């Protein structure tokens, strides 16, 4: 039940993050981003969080100004995919402290790193909130140490 891609798209239709778990040409990718963004932005609030796009299901949820969008195979469990999105937002929120779109823009590599800790090969890797947080904090600690060494040289 793999997730094919995760997109973070602003309300203006700007892509803030795009993670692909399938191999596609840049052209195919940009086609999907364009089509799916258009479909999702057109949905109204009361509608359900699922829609169909070609042979895949698109599952999305809006948080403030950002849409979190995933493309999954039609067999996938929809509600749980929705909750994967939520878990990602929670971890981002905990890490950045009340995460905003700007945090994700300026620290995009962190956003990718956290996503990698949650999802691998399109599958949920870790569902606890603490484990990915610990991983990224360790990662920050190592970087800090290396930066200090640099300074002391």
């Amino acid at each position: 039940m793999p997730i094919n891609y995760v997109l973070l798209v602003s309300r203006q239709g700007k892509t803030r993050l795009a993670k692909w778990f399938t191999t596609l040409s840049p052209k195919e990718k940009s086609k999907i981003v364009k089509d799916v963004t258009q479909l999702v932005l057109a949905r109204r609030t009361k509608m359900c969080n699922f829609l169909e796009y070609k042979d895949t299901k698109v599952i999305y949820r809006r948080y403030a100004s950002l849409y979190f969008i995933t493309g999954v195979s039609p067999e996938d469990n929809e509600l749980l995919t929705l909750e994967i999105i939520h878990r990602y937002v929670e971890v981002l929120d905990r890490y950045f402290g009340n995460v905003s779109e700007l945090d994700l823009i300026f620290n995009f590599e962190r956003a990718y790193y956290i996503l990698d800790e949650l999802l691998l090969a399109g599958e949920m890797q870790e569902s606890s909130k603490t484990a990915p947080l610990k991983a990224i904090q360790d990662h920050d600690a190592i970087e800090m140490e290396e930066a200090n060494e640099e300074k002391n040289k």
Partner: protein
Amino acid sequence: MAMRGLTVFIADIRNCRVRELEEKRINKEMANIRTKFKDGNLSGYDKKKYVCKLLYMYILGWDIDFGHMEAVNLISSPKYSEKQIGYLGITLLMHENSDLVRLVVNSIRKDLDDNNEIHNCLALHAIANIGGREMAESLASDVHRLLVSPNSKSFVKKKAALTMLRLFRKHPDVIPAPDWAERITNIIDDYDLGVCLSVTSLITALAQQYPEAFMLAIPKAIMRLHKVIVERDFSADYVYYKIPIPWLQVKLLRLLQYFPPTEDPNMSEMLHNVLQTIINNSQETPRNVQHNNAQNAILFEAINLAIHLDCESDIVRQATNILARFILSKETNVRYLGLETMAHLAAVTDELDEIKKHEETIILSLRDKDISVRRRGLDLLYSMCDVSNAKTIVSELIRYLHIADYALREEMVLKIAIMTEKYATEHSWYVDVILQLISSAGDHVGEEVWYRVVQIVTNHENLQEYSAKMVLHYMRSPHCHENMLKVGGYILGEYGHLIANLPGASPIEQFNTLHARFGLCSLATRALLLSTYIKFINLFPEIKGAILAVFNQYRHVLDAELQQRACEYMAIATMPTDDLLQTVCEEMPQFPERESALLSRLNEKTGQTEDKRTWNIGGKDSNEKTPANLLAATKERNENGSVDDLVNSVSNTSISAAGGENGAAASANGSAVPPTPAAPAAKAGLTWKDQLAPGYENWYNRLRDGADGILYEDSILQIGIKSEYHGHLGRLAIYFGNKTHTQLNSFAVSVEAPEGLVVANSHTLATSIGPSTQIQQLYSLECQQIVTEVPLIRISYQAGSTQSIYLKLPVLMSRFIEPIQLSSADFFGRWKQIGGAPREVQEIIKVPGKIELERARSILVNHRLGICENVDPKPGNFVATGVFNTSLSGKVGCLLRLEPNHETNMYRLTIRTTSDVVSKHLKEILHTALLYRPTPSTR
């Protein structure tokens, strides 16, 4: 660590109000980075910074055609922060077929082998993200090592499992999954729920490909579910809004849907418990959206599993009520999923009544304001359609077709056409619906639909007149669609004469109706109509003049196809005799019956996805080829040993009933010697028999006569058995003792019984044995048919790596014999009745050493034969009798004589039974027993 240059750059870009400014800034930066890279001699920090800038531009959608090499170099940096950006760079910029993959494989391997787990993780992420053939071939075994090694940390194992999954999905041929099956499956027992989750995802994919090799996953998945859901054993870390690790629950529930239902009664009871608990839990009112979603996600998956196991079970009935509530829910998500799950139920069950109660609600869902919900409603209506409600559903759908979304119409037309064909009870209804469909949704009617109408009308004589009449009627409406014209052209050309006498349908009127639209249609349709006209000339010579005028006109058109037709038809029509015309325009023969092109079209639409579907939209017949069903079917075949059940059962009865030639024929047929059950043995091409533990005979031979004792022993495990038998039934207790001072994990026992012998365990075995502890497993035995093989047992446990021991169980045929005593007269009477070969077998056995009469006597007694004293006139000769019991193939009387010859140290053994198979096998058993001398060292 923040990089100032990067932050400034990002801020700059954000300040660009128009795209041109952004482009200018980007180009400037690219030029800058290009020169920096060209100069070389950059510090690690600078390289990292520039790669980051490139990545940012890449995410914004700009084409990045350089910098890959710098990213590759960063990977081998000793500094973590640089290495990490390097990996991020290659995962974003590279794809699996990139030439650069070759350059990074070695660096990645180095990081996989590194003792630093954080480096392992980075490498695994890279493989999981890129994962081409090159990587799969050179790195899969390293990934496997990290996954199964007892030294791997949990967070490494998780990543290794999913990395393997990615490689398998991309290049299944590179992963020797069946060889790795057991060690991978054992990881479901891992105490870390995260590891369990990842490995379940992996197994789900592998098991679809190699269901037999992953059978062991069934009990493991059930036990894990039971542990989490019923025993509530989980770490608090993994609770998601009051629900313990919903992702794992759903994965395991899904995994089980890829297998046929378990046959083990304990397991299925456990699973039943799990499902019931899930249903009970779902009654709880959720606290918030997250809780609600997680709870429902599990519930829907559980319902899907319940439907898969048995769609008439009590649980499914409860679920149907819940679903009925769901499709009325105010929450759109729940309505959507309720309809979807109900469609699953409708697709597999025979019992549609419960669902039909909600027909009205479901039809209303076609008018939901959300297209996603409308789609699900359509699927459900399609799945629940049968003869009784086809008319209602089809007419609702046709009504809805006018206002349906464009995106939905083609699919709807296809589905309506299929339902109509499948459930039509009157032919006229079929014709009405299809013609209505073509006239009202012509644009969405694919070629297949109208081809099919033509096929059906041609094959059903009683439809022809009616459809000719109707199609003529439809063609007269002002908005006649071109597709209608095609159908009309074909049908009138073939069957127009059937209605020629009706008012308004005279030949010239038929022709005029068609020709009125001739000029407006596509070339293909015009070509078709020209063929209709030549047929008309054959059917109605009276309108030949009008038609020849048309041909004449078209002899000069530009289109080659039309021109050729016009010329040829003209020539045929103006020949002096009508012979050729009549031959050419002979009535079309019936079409051979074939699968509807519509169905294949629809199936094509559902297409291939990564995971196989566990069910298909549509009625029961569309669900016979789901993975689990296929597996069940092959299994059934394998168990029967031969594809032809009938032949098999016939020859089985003939063994005990008739003797003589028949019996010999039966054994040649293959069923007298029970075929080794192919199902579990197929694993890795080796049968269990080939893998028996070395030296097992020492223990086994001592237990052949039914004694209790040790069956196997090594430095870790001691296995003992105790048994008792009565008639065709028996009980067997097996004891497993752990001799070490550590716990044995992933302990599993499975039994492979020969055909005709049923071995069932009465309770579920623990999956671990504590240090210096003994556990017991009870089996009940039932001998159903004549069995000449003994069951095999396989014990496996985890001690560093997985250890497996294969042993024979001493459940010989003679265990199921009951001793009897016969008088001399009775004995010889029956002895004669049975007669000579093949039901008699005789053998001279020379024993090593002296003949011991007491030993011979105890062998006979131990093999459960009653010794009849004073039957044989010569003292010292034994006469023994017994009845071999089976529950299905009746009883077999066994008579034998054992005559010792003290001078030559030889026995003459003569056995007569009512079955030649039993005679032969009993002889072999006694032969082995008489020759057997326990070696002193093992005593």
